[in-house]
């Protein structure tokens, strides 16, 4: 039975409280089991041999010596992965990324793998594999890759999205355009026009837990995979397709996850581990080293963006346009498209156009990173917005308020907005005490806005009530940031029972129907919706059991405060039946009581945030210190405010690292030079101030509680907010992220000349 998804302004007793998370004790005591914590009898150690070259033909791989080494149980190369993709290019890209097929496409690309009885033997075996390479010309920079004469990454790629369809190969995999109105006409009306180009370097999500799995696959084609992932159902489907398995015969269990942020939405070594297991007929455990995580998983794009915005003297924007070039690594992606879609989403614009170019380079395949592609577009656009406000002599917040999108605005990427929070977050920023802090010498303040779509997707949830009245809620989204606590609160709210009575389990792929990957800020939105409905489904059963017990029609039973109550004067003699009482009698009233729901959770509400930050820049070294940072974001409804704030703070912290220091550094040889946490600098505690948060609640009309996703938007504004703050502090416009000390010092010195 379908349940109503519309927002109803219901009151809450549990939702909105700050209860302890159920997985907290496990996590602080070390009892929680992560990707590398599972072991099986007779397991082998899997290791992957990776290309040291940015681009090379693999003319020969000699594995004979490795195979002869005692203790080696399986050796694989690209030849061991027959093409079962049926012409599906997307699947083939995944397969080719997992294991090179005749050509190494980036430094770190897998070319062979071994399974051996221990790590020493596996490492020795890797050294015995002799790969003969013929190096090819390579390109790693996004702008270089689209120049005529650049080495072509794939000769089969024709730029999609242009007419007429091109006939020659290009590194531009896709062109995508969004907007409406007439930009040229709009610019002609402008009193002031600002045009500027920006670059951002490639960053990695930097999750602390490396990829790890334990794979078992027998000759009968049935197997199990224990893995750290954001989407075990997706992993199952993809691995099954690549390896020719039936979906139902591969059971995938998601471990606890030590961070993913989008990087654990794709398979990397899992199909390799399964194939090694099939060949060796033993379980194989494969854990990536940090070096492998950096070189061979999916960082986000490096970008190059041009923005042009015009406005009237009165502060009204007349037209805005952007060209966005995003590299997607060695395989086509849709990352520039997301950049183009999000770039102007915060504003109400008559004339707007954004064009994205997805560009292939010899770098690892780009994956999602928290609101993928939006931060870079926001950096460019929000920088120009700031410059425009300054040029017009307007306050940067007032200028944004004047042009902010609102209910009824046609978004630059197409749809018409419902109730949204960009205006209210800007009002909150304007009135925040942070705004009144006096700035000292070498200090600057920056503000920026950010937008993200959010996603709903396929969801399936089970709720089982034990005979003692305790409740087991099984969901198929992974707990990446406290969702078990939020979902238990929702179940407790619906059933009218204590939060502690609910235990939430992340179900494996054989215990629930398909659940989409935990991405697009969907965990609490979609599993929350399915939990509400599963609980309501269980309440229907509870009411039936009470009706049967009382021998009255079920229509006369209502569910209130955790008990069945009989309505009507004729039922006055019937005392209420609590959930516990009904559960205790369930063996004799029809058996176990359960609720179930499967839903495509459409209508994820868009989400907006405004950030402000104060920085101090050392003019002699170019070092930036973040003095104060404030996040204001619309959560729709904060089910568990702590974890909403945690998401706000986490996004800001990652954004600060990205803005100031994080970057992939490639040498002229196309090799990654900083594949480790020493030289890939994510911030440490002492680099960050306390990150202040303010939650706004503008209900999403398409969720019973008004929930919007909150996980991603918080990383969208930081690059721009910090860029604006640093530029204001040093008096020079910063156009290249990260704004590392050498870049800032260089900008200061160049401006002096």
């Amino acid at each position, binding site marked *: 039975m379908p349940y109503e998804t519309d927002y109803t302004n219901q009151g809450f007793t549990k939702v909105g409280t700050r209860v302890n998370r159920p997985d907290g004790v496990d996590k602080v005591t070390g009892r929680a089991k992560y990707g590398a914590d599972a072991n099986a009898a007779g397991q082998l150690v899997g290791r992957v041999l990776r290309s040291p070259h940015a681009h090379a033909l693999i003319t020969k791989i000699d594995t004979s010596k490795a195979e002869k080494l005692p203790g080696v149980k399986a050796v694989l190369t690209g030849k061991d992965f027959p093409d079962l993709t049926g012409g599906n290019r997307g699947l083939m890209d995944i397969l080719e990324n997992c294991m090179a097929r005749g050509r190494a496409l980036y430094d770190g690309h897998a070319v062979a793998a071994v399974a051996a009885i221990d790590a020493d033997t596996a490492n020795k075996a890797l050294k015995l594999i002799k790969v003969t390479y013929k190096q090819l010309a390579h390109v790693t920079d996004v702008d270089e890759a689209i120049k005529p004469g650049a080495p072509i990454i794939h000769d089969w790629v024709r730029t999609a999205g242009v007419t007429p369809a091109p006939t020659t190969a290009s590194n531009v995999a896709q062109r995508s355009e969004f907007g409406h109105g007439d930009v040229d006409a709009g610019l002609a009306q402008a009193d002031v026009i600002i045009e500027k180009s920006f670059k951002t370097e490639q960053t990695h999500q930097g999750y602390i837990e490396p990829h790890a799995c334990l794979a078992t696959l027998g000759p009968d084609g049935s197997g199990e995979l224990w893995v750290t992932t954001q989407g075990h159902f997706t992993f199952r489907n993809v691995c099954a397709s690549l390896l020719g398995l039936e979906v139902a015969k591969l059971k995938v269990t998601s471990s606890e996850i030590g961070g993913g942020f989008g990087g654990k939405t794709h398979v990397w070594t899992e199909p390799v581990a399964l194939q090694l297991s099939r060949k060796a007929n033993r379980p194989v455990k494969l854990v990536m080293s940090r*070096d492998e995580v950096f070189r061979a998983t999916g960082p986000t794009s490096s970008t190059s963006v041009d923005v042009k915005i015009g406005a009237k003297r009165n502060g009204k924007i007349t037209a805005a346009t952007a060209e966005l070039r995003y590299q997607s690594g060695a395989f086509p992606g849709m990352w520039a498209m997301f950049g183009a879609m999000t770039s102007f989403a915060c504003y109400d614009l008559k004339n707007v156009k954004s064009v994205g170019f997805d560009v292939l380079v010899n770098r690892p395949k780009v994956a999602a990173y928290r609101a993928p592609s939006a931060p870079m577009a926001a950096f460019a656009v929000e920088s120009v917005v700031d410059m425009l406000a300054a040029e017009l002599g307007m306050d940067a917040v007032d200028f944004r308020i004047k042009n902010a999108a609102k209910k009824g605005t046609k978004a630059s990427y197409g749809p018409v907005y419902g109730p949204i929070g960009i205006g209210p977050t800007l009002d909150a920023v304007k009135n925040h005490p942070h705004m009144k802090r006096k700035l000292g010498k070498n200090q600057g303040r920056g503000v920026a806005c950010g937008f993200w779509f959010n996603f709903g997707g396929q969801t399936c949830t089970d709720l089982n009530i034990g005979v003692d009245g305790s409740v087991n809620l099984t969901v198929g989204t992974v707990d990446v940031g406290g969702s078990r606590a939020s979902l238990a609160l929702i179940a407790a709210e619906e059933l009218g029972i204590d939060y502690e009575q609910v235990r939430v389990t992340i179900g494996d792929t054989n215990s629930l129907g398909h659940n989409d990957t935990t991405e697009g800020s969907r965990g609490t939105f979609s599993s929350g919706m399915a939990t509400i409905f599963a609980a309501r489904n269980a309440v229907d059963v509870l009411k039936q059991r009470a009706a049967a017990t009382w021998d009255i029609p079920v229509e006369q039973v209502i569910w209130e405060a955790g008990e069945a109550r009989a309505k009507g004067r004729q039922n006055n003699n019937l005392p209420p039946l609590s959930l516990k009482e009904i559960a205790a009698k369930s063996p004799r009233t029809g058996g176990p009581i359960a609720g179930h729901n499967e839903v495509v959770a459409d209508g994820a509400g868009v989400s907006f945030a405004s950030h402000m930050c104060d920085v101090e820049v050392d003019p*002699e*070294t170019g070092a930036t210190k973040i003095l104060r940072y404030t996040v204001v974001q619309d959560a729709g409804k904060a089910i568990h405010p702590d974890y909403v704030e945690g998401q706000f703070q986490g996004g800001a912290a990652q954004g600060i690292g990205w803005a100031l220091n994080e970057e992939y550094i490639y040498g002229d040889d196309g090799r990654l030079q900083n594949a480790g946490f020493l030289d890939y*600098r994510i911030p*440490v505690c*002492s680099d960050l101030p306390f990150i202040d948060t303010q939650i706004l609640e503008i209900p999403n009309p398409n969720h019973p509680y008004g929930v919007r996703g909150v996980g991603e938007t918080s990383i969208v504004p930081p690059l721009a907010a910090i860029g604006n703050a640093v530029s204001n502090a040093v008096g020079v416009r910063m156009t290249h992220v990260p704004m590392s*000390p*050498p870049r800032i010092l260089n900008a200061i010195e160049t401006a002096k000349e």
Partner: protein
Amino acid sequence: MRFESPTTTKAAATLLASESGIAHVLAGGTDLLVRMKMGAIEPDLIVDIKRIESLRTLKVAAAGVQIGAAVPAVRLSESEKLRNLWPGVVEAANLIGSDQIQGRCTVVGNLCNASPAADSVPALIAAGAKALVVGPKGKRRVAVEKVVLGPGRTSLARDEFIEAVVLPARTGKSADAYLRFTPRTEMDIAVVSAAINLTLSRGIVQSAKVVLGAVAPTAVVVPAAAKALIGSKLDDAALDKMVAACRAACNPIDDKRGTIEYRTKVAGVMARRAALIAYERAGGSK
């Protein structure tokens, strides 16, 4: 791989001398274990020196300081006397890694690892520290700046190791200071650094030693910079001259951690700031 933990320096020296393969001394292990884990080295013998009582001693007196090769960096900061005598050496040792790292790592390990960016090395050199080297033929004493030959290379023979470093007697109004530049506030590696040791008389610099780190294959002693300070009260002209001398002495590389230009510029900035701190600590006022 063999792992030995002898209890005397003699036994340690014998073990090292009789190993035909690759032998490594293990102090805190914060470099050695990382390199082993990375697969950069595969030793045949590891000699853990932490069981040798004499190497675990830290002697602090105005007449001289001895820091045993197995003394973890955290113990330096725990000694108030040492902090007062050699604040620059202590602050350098306390920049290594983090609290966890400092609970294990040693300044001798820092020296023997021979990284151009090692934090305690410029401070030890500025302090005029000597290394006590033990080998099969007995002991020798060598200035710290003579230990490191280049990145990852020392002047120690394969059967020698360092027992301790000693700092000279402290006289008059003296103080040292160490500053490094890192993009992060901690858990980072010096992009450039400067150590300065000064002795004053009536506010005038009598003697000085200026040492730069991470601007050349080894730490660089800059006599011209010291000369610029001697006889001054650290007025701007003297400081400018010192900064220019420092920049002229830089011979850095362009790499992922910094450019030649940036390192050269910031070396001067660090040296100027360190000089002012040392001056104030020594009782000078401006």
